[in-house]
């Protein structure tokens, strides 16, 4: 069909814990082709699975895949599509009504149980956070590592790129796609062997713009702001050839999460998770 040939694909990218290398390849491939990523599976029929998901994540991916609109294509990280096959009928169980409960202001409000992840755009691979929400305020959070790996993609030689990746995702979660894309380009340049001094001169104006954004400071005030500032300083230091800290072990970040998330508004919760950016693809404990 003519119209279909004219259409630009919009892949929905899902990453397993060991899929960082693939995810970066997919993102670079999309940029080279002028494609944009989809934020939700409903937006598109094209899914890109990065890495090798374990059984539990594979189930979650299968559920999302089964529910995507036709025409469906499943692609590997090189974005070469494999046709999707027909869709099995979706069997629906009864959908329960929300419970009620007292909220922090003493109002009785619906209680919703909503999972964040593991299949979610700009979200740490392999992580699931089960939220108990009233309105959009988190009452309780339970954190699960759905998919893990013991690789070490973000090794010592890739420290600047590693933090640029975190910054890129945090900025996208903060609703600033243009700056997030710039960070991703710098990240790919760092991985692609652009010399550190050249990169430092490209990074400086970016860091200034992000660091000086009043709106970003206003919206992230507190811990998230401090972690972002820390990342920007670390990237600068790494590009200067100075020693930098490795990422925090992900099990420590996960242990902190429930207490940080409780009481946060949903948007804030996303920013908190993005500002910790646990990498479940490295062995726990370092």
């Amino acid at each position, binding site marked *: 069909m003519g119209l279909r040939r*004219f259409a*630009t694909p919009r892949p929905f990218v899902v990453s397993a814990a060991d899929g960082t290398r693939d995810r970066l390849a997919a993102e670079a491939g999309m940029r080279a082709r002028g494609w*944009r990523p989809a934020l939700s599976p*409903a*937006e*598109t029929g094209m899914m890109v699975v990065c890495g090798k998901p374990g059984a539990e994540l594979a189930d979650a991916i299968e559920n999302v895949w089964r529910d995507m609109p036709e025409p469906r294509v499943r692609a590997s990280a090189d974005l070469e599509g494999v046709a999707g096959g027909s869709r099995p009928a*979706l069997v629906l169980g009864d959908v329960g009504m929300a419970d009620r409960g007292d909220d922090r202001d003493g109002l009785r409000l619906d209680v919703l149980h909503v999972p964040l992840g593991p299949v979610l*755009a700009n979200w740490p691979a392999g992580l699931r956070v089960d939220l108990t929400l009233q309105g959009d305020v988190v009452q309780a959070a339970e954190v699960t590592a759905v998919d893990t790996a013991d690789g070490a993609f973000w090794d010592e030689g890739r420290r600047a790129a590693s933090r640029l990746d975190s910054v890129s995702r945090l900025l996208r979660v903060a609703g600033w*796609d243009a700056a997030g894309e710039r960070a991703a380009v710098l990240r790919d340049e760092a991985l692609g062997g652009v010399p550190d001094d050249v990169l430092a001169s490209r990074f400086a104006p970016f860091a200034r713009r992000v660091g000086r954004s009043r709106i970003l400071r206003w919206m992230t005030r507190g811990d998230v702001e401090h972690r972002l500032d820390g990342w920007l300083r670390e990237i600068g230091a790494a590009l200067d050839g100075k020693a930098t800290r490795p990422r925090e072990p992900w099990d420590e970040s996960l242990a902190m999460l429930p207490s940080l998330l409780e009481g946060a508004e949903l948007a804030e919760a*996303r920013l908190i998770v993005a500002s910790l950016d646990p990498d479940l693809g490295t062995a726990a404990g370092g």
Partner: protein
Amino acid sequence: MVEVLVLGAVAVAAASLNAAFAGHRPAEPFHEAARLLTMQRRVTASADRLLTGVGVISLPVAAALAALVVPVGGHVAVDAPVGLVWFNAMEVVAWASVWLAGWGVNSAFALVGGYRFIAQGLAYELPHMFALITAALAAHSLDLRVIGEAQDGLWFAVWMPVAFAVYLISALAMAFWGPFGHPLGGDLAGGAALELSGPDRLVFLAGRYGLLTVSAAVAVPLFLGGGSGPLLPGWAWSLVKTAAVLALLVWTRHRLPVLRMDRFMTVAWTVLIPATLLQMLVVGLVVV
């Protein structure tokens, strides 16, 4: 009716401009439209299909109905003595559109996106209405053409800058665009539009461009002297000014992060409302 079609074409140009700002091809919106048109419509479990449909379709319809009273030079599709009130009413229809689309699909994130737009409405609507009334007060009319013609030599934007600035902010907010894009936020995987697929999504997003374009076009008779200007005919000046305002609005998406209403609300009520009231007082003292 030509005026409405012209504004529709300007809305398409805005989509192209948005792609160009992001470093993509200007033809990208056409490729995206082709993709959405050839995609299956997906329905979520226990969705309220009627209300979702009403929400999706009412957005571009509200934008088109608002465009009826927008003057292009001396021409207007429907000559309405209360055009300003009509524009305001159509813009509030968008609240229902986003809420229904977010609520109807029966998805928690889409619902939160709908909530966000209602909260946003509570933040921007009062300052917005005070800004509109200030311009109407100075022109002694609710007719957008009369307001445009009342700015003989001195644009309202020049001597009521606070009202103009607040109007630009509220234009972004009513079209949930750029820094006010939280109802469709990436942190909610697309928020109120999360579950919209295929043609539904195309219609909804086209409606948003329509709303953004109309709100830019209304700034011209309200604050920028309408179709007045040297050499060119009135309609050309209207379009040039509309394009300039629209380009500014589109650009903000690439320059600013998104605003959260749990933080912005305080500023809206403690800074924007008093500021617009003071502006109205000053204008009232000058014109009466």
